[in-house]
């Protein structure tokens, strides 16, 4: 758990002609904070890291995360870690603008998006787990 951005880094460094976009959550980033420093150091120019920060461990019971009520500011941590382009947004309009900038920018970018803690009734997946193990790999392979 918490390794989405690390997997993205491995992909981005090995697929330099692809744009790698990582969709992450506050709980996931909090359990792997070191990733922000590794991302900053190796600075993959083709990677966008989006953190949807709802201040809640919503899918595992709705417990408060450390970012609840702005106690911990993940955008500030990313800036301090040395991520070169960090946008902190809390409205849809600002998110769209930040996403456009991140995609146009030929550099590592991070969007810290504060969002509401709302989600579906359940988090069960509608595909069989063995298939889930191969789907992503197949998708990447087909892109090459």
């Amino acid at each position, binding site marked *: 758990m918490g390794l989405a951005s690390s*997997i993205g880094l491995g*992909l981005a460094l090995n697929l330099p002609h692809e744009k790698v976009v990582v969709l992450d959550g506050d709980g996931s980033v909090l359990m792997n904070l070191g990733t922000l420093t590794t991302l900053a150091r190796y600075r993959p120019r083709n990677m966008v890291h989006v953190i949807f920060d709802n201040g809640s461990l919503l899918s595992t019971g709705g417990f408060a995360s450390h970012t609840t009520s702005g106690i911990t500011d993940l955008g500030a941590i990313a800036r301090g870690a040395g991520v070169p382009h960090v946008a902190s947004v809390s409205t849809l309009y600002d998110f769209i603008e930040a996403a456009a900038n991140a995609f146009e920018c030929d550099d590592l970018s991070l969007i810290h998006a504060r969002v509401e803690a709302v989600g579906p009734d359940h988090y069960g997946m509608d595909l069989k787990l063995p298939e889930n193990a191969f789907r992503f790999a197949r998708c990447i392979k087909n892109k090459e």
Partner: protein
Amino acid sequence: MTVSRENSKLLYQGIKDAGIRFITALPETWLVYLLQMAESDPEMCLVEVAREEEAVGIAAGAYFAGAPNLLPAARHGIGLLHWPGAGAQPAP
């Protein structure tokens, strides 16, 4: 096999011969020479991490990208890469 420049050179040559051009690792004593060689090799991409778990994700990403890669881990690093409770068997 003890840690030495000569032994590390042998290992590194084996890594290169296996077609590996991507290494991710936590820098530590047993890997010193190996990582120094990787760092000074323009053919090799080395990603040093803050914690071993990160390396698992990065190696997985490299795998998905189709890149033969290596995650060397020494001693306690190997323990960290596994579920901490896996080896905790009750005493007979």
